[in-house]
């Protein structure tokens, strides 16, 4: 899989320009004048676009950065797509608020645009929902080089097609997003984390079912391997007194006293640092019913994993040489994954597993990007 020296040399000579627009209009002009474009945010997730031609122009949106409107009392925020999440977190925390979909890679420097383009949510999505549930409006440049606005700036709006939702997970296909309006929430007064360990896959799934079919203030429900067993991490959020009582409920539901751990336990999963540079990092959504089968496929590839969202999202750290065979295993399970980071030794990336490209998406592409300027990801 390693690119030969010859291709590397070719790539160097043939390398696409980097364009760094400073205004939305400039971004639109660049798109209109370019045959093939790869949108670049802040460089934290090279995986989705690892397979794009090197000759493509890199549309670097890092200069389109900054908060445009933030009304804490409205619980809405509008920012340019290149804004680092770190900046948003700081502004929000000053007002006791946060992004409830709990995006990962904040400290790594991820941008709002790149995060939503990959549709990434973090452990905290269990409480109120994922990235798609918090987008209200956007402005994007489509493949015609036109700036289009979709959605609105208020928390409820049913007018026009919902382009904002559509662009969540689009990975730079269909257009380059210039600006997002998102819904934010107040930070919970306290969070407390607990661990239940020594579970096998079936027990783990059972425990998830027990916890999620009751109205509990769960804030996160993650799983990770621990030798041959699985450890479950539970985070509760809300009023101290109410959490105290719910911990009691959980203990009686599970017949074990969950052990309290410090906040640090969430850090590793939030930041994805557990996946080495020589590994490919793939994000795989799954219904709970396929969780055990997916774990078996992961084991068969000698891969490592972490699961989030009550087992419905699995992050897989894959040995470079396992990319193709893991893709086949996923397709057999009817699952599709997204490469977040390619391994240092292999340029493979994009989507993997079962294909999602069918008539509906093809037609929308014909409407928004008929010349294919923004490319089409595999699968």
């Amino acid at each position: 899989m390693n690119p030969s020296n010859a291709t590397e040399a070719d790539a160097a000579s043939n390398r696409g320009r980097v364009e760094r627009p400073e205004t939305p209009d400039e971004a639109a002009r660049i798109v209109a004048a370019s045959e093939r474009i790869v949108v670049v945010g802040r460089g934290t997730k090279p995986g989705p676009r690892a397979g794009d031609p090197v000759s493509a122009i890199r549309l670097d949106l890092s200069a389109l950065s900054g908060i445009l409107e933030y009304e804490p009392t409205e619980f809405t925020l509008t920012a340019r797509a290149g804004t680092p999440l770190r900046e948003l977190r700081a502004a929000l925390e000053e007002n006791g608020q946060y992004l409830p979909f709990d995006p990962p890679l904040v400290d790594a420097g991820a941008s709002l645009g790149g995060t939503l383009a990959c549709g990434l949510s973090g452990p905290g999505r269990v409480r109120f929902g994922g990235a798609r549930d918090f987008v209200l409006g956007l402005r994007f440049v489509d493949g015609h080089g036109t700036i289009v606005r979709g959605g609105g700036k208020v928390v409820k709006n049913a007018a026009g097609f919902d382009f904002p939702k559509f662009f969540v997970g689009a990975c730079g296909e269909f257009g380059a997003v210039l600006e997002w309006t998102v819904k934010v929430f107040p930070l919970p007064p306290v969070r407390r984390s607990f661990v239940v360990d020594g579970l096998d896959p079936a027990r783990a799934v059972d425990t998830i079912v027990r916890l999620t079919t009751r109205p509990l203030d769960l804030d996160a429900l993650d799983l990770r391997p621990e030798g041959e067993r699985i450890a479950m991490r539970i985070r509760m959020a809300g009023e101290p007194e109410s959490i105290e009582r719910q911990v009691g409920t959980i203990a009686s539901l599970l017949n074990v006293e969950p052990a309290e751990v410090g906040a640090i336990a969430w850090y590793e999963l939030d930041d994805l640092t557990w996946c080495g540079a020589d590994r490919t990092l793939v994000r795989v959504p799954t219904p709970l019913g396929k969780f055990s089968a997916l774990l078996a496929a992961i084991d068969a590839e000698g891969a490592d994993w972490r699961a989030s969202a009550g087992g419905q999202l699995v992050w897989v750290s894959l040995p470079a040489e396992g990319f193709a065979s893991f893709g086949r295993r996923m397709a057999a399970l009817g699952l599709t994954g997204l490469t977040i980071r390619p391994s240092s030794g292999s340029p493979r990336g994009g989507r993997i597993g079962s294909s999602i490209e069918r008539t509906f998406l093809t037609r929308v592409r014909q409407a928004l990007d008929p010349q294919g300027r923004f490319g089409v990801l595999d699968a």
Partner: protein
Amino acid sequence: MNFDAALDEIRRALPAERIVLEAGGLAAFESDGLTAFAVRPRAVVVPESEADVVAIVTACARHRVPYVARGSGTSLSGGSLPHQDGIVIALNRMNAILRIDPRERIAVVQAGAINLALSAKAAPHGLYYAPDPSSQQICTIGGNVAFNSGGAHCLKYGMTANHVLGLRVVLPDGTVESLGGESCEQVGPDAVGLFVGSEGLLGIATEVTVRLLPKPQAFHTVLAGYATLEQAGDAVTRIVGSGLLPGALEIMDRLSMDAAHAAVGAKYPAGCEAVLIVELDGAGDWVDVERRRLERLIADSGPVEVLIADDADERLKIWKGRKSAFSAVGRLSPDFIVQDGVVPRTKLAEALRGISAMSRETGIRVANVFHAGDGNLHPLIMYDGREPGALERAEELAGRIVALCVDLGGSITGEHGVGMEKRQFLSRMFSEEDIAAMKRVRHSLDPDEISNRGKVFPDAEAPSLRMYGLHPLEAAGQVSRL
């Protein structure tokens, strides 16, 4: 267009008793919940399976015959109004609840399934389907999907789009495909998100996969009366700003209280210009703790009187008054228009002042009942359709209110959709380029505009207006609305 050729093809696919052609049968489908419009379709066909839908749509596509999917026809914006040259595809027989999976907390239903029937079926598992439009006894999940419908509880739980995980759709060329899946997370552009709320323009949903939530164990419902509407609005800002997230946060003004009192005998504190209804729901422990915070917040907001529902019965009474408000307004006025504008929450007071100034200036009475938590107004503009010019004056006022919402940074519709009624306002919210992009998407899937032709976009011709008023089912006392 060749209607007869399309009909011949449909006749080969469906038995004659599921193809309605005679005037009497067609009349029932002339209007939806927006009774100001009425159009007689050429035919109504009743599919019983996805294969039937494909056969009908394929015939329509081949012969360029416009069609409108119809659930229960409760749209308040004329979304399911027929086309005079076209076919109505009535989905009510495709109402099966195909699967409830309590472990995954999902349900798979046919598009014609009734919203409330789904919650009833999920109840034995301790689960329910959260989006609760007040038409939920009759409206279909397919109609909810097409309009991204909301309800009193969307402040905390979100709209239909937040609960739909997957769809099976028949595209306007007859292609069938699945969008989304069964996981709460997904890979790739959110095609489900784009389809939901597209008002039947991008195709027909035949199957819907939704997520179910654990039923709340406890409720705490409070009704607080205020001397002014503005104080009630301030209380909303306080509550939301405190970080409490109530299941519902609703305001009624004096006129709607009077109407609810006249209609169902609902009682409200004397000397109040507005009442605020707040409901906390969730785990018993949570509600117990949060109610004390709520009590402090309300006490600090200067209410005239506070009533707390002590039991399920009193809670239902509070909601009965609230939910009857729309139909109750029918007692104060022979006709009325329901508006559905949204303003930023902090502009609520300004919007209400603007509306009451317009009402004084025009002499037209306007009652206000609204989802205060998310700034979704429902002004009820009253008029007498028998009076010459009254409908037009009421419509003009409705238009000014929509314009006010947009000027304040809001939206022309929060949950009832654009449909027929608000087409001319779409361009107040979106530029020509924005609308052109939406149309490109539409035309790419449906070059001949056969799927719900004439809706959403501003340029199409409007059929003539009749009158606004109660939905026939409301008049019969079968449904009420928020």
